[in-house]
């Protein structure tokens, strides 16, 4: 390949050619097989050896080998292995944090010593607050308001108040909706979170306990939110116990529980 062609291909791949030059090179790619091969190879070099960029083919690849691997990935052995890996992963992630929990007794002894210093207390405060906000995940809460017109009157208003963090007013409206025997687990979640945000901890506990013992489909979510209550109250010991329970029983958000438990280390 000539130096001129090399520079031309480099500019083409870096998208710095003029429209006219680009048209000319596309024409050459179409008509000259050798030139096309050089462009493809140069592209592979740039994409493969670039430290950050990684190749992602936008067109279906024509490499026979890819197609052979597709068959293997679709085969029975691969499907079985996927199941095995999934199970091993779940088992590993669960035991990983059980071990951490056993070590907790020793860690706790160290913490008792450290706790004498006020610095630790302050640091811990910041961390648990941040974790609480991160794991409450308000933005991903499903909306209470449905598309139809069957929602109780106050529901839309309550949702709006909740979204602007006017929890006092939201809670009052949610309670009114609750009295209409509107039965949805997610309403209990909204009520509990509003109580939690208003620091009415025992009321929030009661709400989620009621949720857990109900026959609502979302019942097990109550455990997760009870763990968040402990987190917000900075009761790390209780938060850990509650998270561990979620992990052991594989309840709602058990993967998040693993993650959160680890961050509490």
């Amino acid at each position: 390949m000539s130096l001129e062609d090399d520079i031309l291909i480099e500019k083409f791949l870096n998208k710095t050619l003029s429209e006219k030059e680009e048209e000319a090179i596309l024409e050459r790619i179409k008509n000259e097989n050798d030139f096309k091969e050089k462009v493809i190879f140069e592209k592979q070099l740039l994409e493969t050896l670039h430290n950050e960029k990684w190749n992602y083919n936008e067109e279906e690849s024509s490499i026979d080998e890819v197609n052979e691997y597709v068959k293997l990935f679709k085969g029975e052995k691969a499907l079985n292995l996927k199941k095995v890996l999934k199970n091993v992963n779940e088992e590993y992630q669960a035991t990983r944090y059980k071990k951490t929990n056993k070590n907790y007794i020793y860690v706790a002894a160290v913490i008792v010593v450290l706790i004498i210093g006020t610095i630790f207390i302050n640091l811990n405060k910041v961390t648990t607050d941040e974790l609480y906000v991160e794991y409450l995940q308000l933005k991903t809460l499903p909306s209470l308001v449905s598309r139809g017109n069957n929602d109780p009157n106050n529901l839309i208003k309550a949702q709006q108040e909740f979204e602007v963090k006017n929890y006092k007013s939201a809670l009052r409206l949610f309670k009114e909706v609750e009295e209409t025997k509107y039965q949805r687990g997610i309403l209990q979640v909204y009520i509990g979170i509003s109580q939690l945000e208003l620091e009415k901890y025992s009321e929030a506990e009661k709400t989620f306990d009621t949720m857990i013992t109900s026959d609502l489909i979302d019942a097990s979510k109550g455990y997760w939110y009870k763990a968040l209550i402990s987190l917000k109250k900075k009761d790390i010991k209780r938060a850990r116990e509650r998270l561990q329970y979620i992990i052991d029983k594989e309840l709602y958000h058990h993967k998040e529980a693993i993650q959160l438990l680890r961050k509490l280390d």
Partner: protein
Amino acid sequence: MKDNSYYLEALINQDSKKIKKLYEECFPKVEKFLLKNKGTFHDAEDIFQKALLQITIRYQKEKFIIKSNFEAYLFTVCRNMWRRELNANKNWVTNNDVVALNEEEFNLAEALVEQKRWELFAEALELISENCKKILKMFFNRIPYTKMVEEMGYNSETVARQRVFKCKAKLTTLIKKDKRYKSLKEI
């Protein structure tokens, strides 16, 4: 010390106990890497599983030899796979058709071939002179020629371009004469 086929065989035989040991030894490092590079815990789980699947399928087909230790190799596969996913996500945002085109197995197969191509290219890069390697690394990482001139003490950009051209030609020859290249070539 375990030889490199220990875990490969464990994967082929779907030996849960040994695979769990592999998780214990390697997952935390991969998780740490992903968390530092825009990933989440779930991404780490996903990438780790895909990497193990990729390695197994490749071993099933060609009984390849891992030149470094298994743990280091697995980490490289995870790292390359994660970069690929990051790049793919950028495409997904702008091109919905791309998503439709790429079913899971096809993506896994392409990632596998790309991993093999990466191994071939990276090995070839190690075989050329230190000077060439240095200038090509700058070139592939899109360092401007003006900076190359400064860094390498060349007289002009033209000299730098010629140097890149010659070094790239050496690298190309090495890659193309490797028997692995034929099957990785994209026409």
